[in-house]
């Protein structure tokens, strides 16, 4: 079985909610839509206080090419445009909507019938995707239409669908494949058409044998789609790792991107959103979210309207456990710890993980014993111990030379460190500084 070739770790999988069918979460009383749910320029509001909106009404327009519009997931009245602390911990502007009823825009096809045929041209598909506000649903939230518009001089050769879900605990993509397999596959054909390629690979880790079997059966009737079972290893869902695992090509260090080796990587959740946007005229305002944790009463997968406060998800899964000490938006390896449960579900919210006090405890760091385990597990072939130490001392030139910008922040180094050193904390500090230095240098030119 295939996998990526450098480094990697094996965190305990803990896929507690894998057997739980996707439930539908009730519409919230108030929904909050941050204007920055994606990488790039924030969206610009097109509604004002007091405006009435329906489910699927555009409430904010993309603020540039690398940006995405935002749609309302509820019907009701705009209450205010104000700041809210989102999953990143920063206070950012958002649109607050008080919910009244559940009235949908008429243009949206709400039937469950599968539509396979599509007469749109590539450009029309990309435009539809852009208009629907679709971003990478795996968590990175990079606007999808940008990835589907190769820069001049580059041509896509194949689409890679990331259905790896290598983060422990998360099962949202797994359930989506099991329950919406055909929709996902149609979405993949649309993506293939969008970038004009004849081949698509769907990478699934072998811990999801049912999804592999199902998609393999279904894919037989779609031309050019191949399901590739992958050996379980974290961080296989990393874009560069997935390309290495499936087609054996390695993306050169930044500023190179996957398209430089002819690959376009999209998350399986994104493929589903593309299906809904193109075939059903439904913009992105819903997604599947896993709510899980060892002390959570009912670990579940929910189809959630965006803007729903996280608290409602926890309540639906049996309430906040007594011993909850840390709540993470996303998985345990790369997710973000939340300061409170008022944070709304966004386009990139793949899961909500509740950790107990015992699990959340960080051990006291001990001196680095130079065991080289961080070097062995680093999937980018870096020397995390060196980057962390040099960042701690402020040697910015040195860390740039040691390729700190290649770091994908997967956390394998810190996960493995026997001395429990906060390696990635320091590397993030260094990355922030170095990217500032690089930006300053480029503007000077």
């Amino acid at each position, binding site marked *: 079985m295939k996998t990526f070739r450098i480094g990697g770790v094996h*965190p*305990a999988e803990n896929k507690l909610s894998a057997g739980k069918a996707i439930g539908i979460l009730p519409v919230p009383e108030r929904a909050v839509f941050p204007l920055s749910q994606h990488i790039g320029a924030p969206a610009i509001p097109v509604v004002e206080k007091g405006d009435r909106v329906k489910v699927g009404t555009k409430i904010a327009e993309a603020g540039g090419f690398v940006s995405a519009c935002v749609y309302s997931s509820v019907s009701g009245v705009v209450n205010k445009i104000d700041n809210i602390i989102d999953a990143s*911990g920063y206070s950012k502007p958002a649109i607050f909507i008080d919910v009244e009823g559940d009235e949908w825009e008429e243009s949206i096809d709400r039937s469950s019938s599968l539509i396979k045929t599509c007469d749109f041209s590539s450009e029309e598909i990309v435009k539809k995707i852009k208009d629907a506000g679709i971003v990478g649903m795996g968590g990175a939230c990079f606007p999808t239409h940008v990835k589907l518009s190769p820069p001049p001089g580059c041509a896509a050769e194949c689409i890679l669908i990331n259905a790896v879900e290598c983060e*422990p605990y998360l099962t949202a993509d797994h359930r989506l494949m099991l329950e919406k397999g055909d929709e996902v596959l149609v979405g993949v054909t649309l993506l293939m058409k969008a970038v004009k390629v004849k081949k698509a690979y769907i990478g699934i880790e072998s811990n999801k044998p049912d999804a592999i079997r199902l998609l393999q059966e279904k894919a037989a009737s779609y031309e050019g789609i191949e399901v590739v079972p992958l050996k379980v290893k974290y961080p296989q869902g990393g874009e*560069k790792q997935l390309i*290495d695992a499936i087609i054996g090509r*390695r*993306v*050169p*260090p930044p500023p*190179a991107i996957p398209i430089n080796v002819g690959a376009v990587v999209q998350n399986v959740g994104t493929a589903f959103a593309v299906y809904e946007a193109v075939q059903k005229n439904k913009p992105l305002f819903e997604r599947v979210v896993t709510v899980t944790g060892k002390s959570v009463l009912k670990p579940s997968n929910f189809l959630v309207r965006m803007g729903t406060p996280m608290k409602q998800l926890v309540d639906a899964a049996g309430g*906040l456990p007594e011993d*909850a*000490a*840390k709540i*993470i938006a*996303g998985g*345990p*390896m*790369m*997710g*973000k*710890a*939340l*300061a*409170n449960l008022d944070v709304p579900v966004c386009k990139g919210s793949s899961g909500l993980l509740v*950790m107990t006090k015992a*699990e*959340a405890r960080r*051990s006291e760091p*001990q*001196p*680095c*014993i*130079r065991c*080289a*385990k961080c*070097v*062995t597990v*680093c999937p*980018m*072939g*870096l*020397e995390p*111990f*060196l980057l962390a130490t040099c960042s701690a001392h402020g040697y910015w030139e040195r860390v740039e030379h040691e*390729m700190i910008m*290649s770091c994908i*922040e997967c*956390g*394998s180094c*810190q*996960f493995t*460190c*026997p*001395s*429990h050193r*906060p390696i*990635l*904390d320091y590397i993030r500090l260094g990355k922030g500084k170095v990217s500032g230095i690089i930006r300053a240098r480029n503007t000077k030119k």
Partner: protein
Amino acid sequence: MANKLIVSLSPHVHNGDSVQRNMYGVMIALIPALLVSFYMFGLGAVIVSLTSVASCLFFEWAITKFILKRERTTIADGSAALTGLLLAFNLPSNLPLWIIVIGALVSIGIGKMTFGGLGCNPFNPALVGRVFLLISFPVQMTSWPVTGQLLSYTDAETGATPLALMKQAIHGDTEALGKLPDTLDLFLGNNPGCLGEVSALALLIGLFYMLWKKIISWHIPVSILVTVFVFSGLMHWVDPDTYASPLVHLCTGGLMLGAIFMATDYVTSPMSHKGMILYGVCIGFLTVVIRLFGAYPEGMSFAILIMNAFTPLINAYCKPKRFGEVKK
């Protein structure tokens, strides 16, 4: 919300590994060799190893508490006990107590704590102690008891080690190689020597344990053993009367102990796999050079200490292969 939430950056989980787990893991890997030493050298081995471990622990505790004045001592992390055990493995079983205590003081005091304690020392502390003793007390450090004297300590009868016989052969004694014990005896440990180094078999069991538990990687031990085998094999092939066979080289002296436990010391060995192999090849080469052409019969300790000094340089030049990097 009544209770406050913890907010920290990812990753939020850890694989549960710790410094202690690795240190005690190495100690577990040393158990087979320790048992062989008890079986071969009896009381002497017990006294030497206990004294060495106890005095290393004492010096680590005393130095952190009274000289460095740190709030917490670090003896619980297992590194001092491991240094003590490895030092004992590098001593003959009839060494007087006071010499062992001096060795422990040099190991922990000069080899480790002067540089700031665990993780900061450039040289392997146990080897610093051993080489200090070897140079300061050459007579006591090079008279090894014959195996099987279970109840004797400093009064044990001593005999020539295989390495000494091999050195005599190089100096022109044509009968010396013939007096070597059977290679199987050398492999199992039935020959005079330092207490931990005699049994290649027991040390190899330790190696496999450490590889299985992923405490060390194969790069350093394998590159040392292969280099020694190839280089000494070449010399043996050129002149079999003067130079002993490569198998004898592998099974004698501190070679296995050095390759498996001393050279693989985390703190003092290179960080990248490429660097580890270069380091191992150089250690193997230097060991054979010292054994065949140097003044000392054994070269392992010196080879490792010399290469320890080169570790920062190796780290600076042997970088791991970066993802996607193209050769210019």
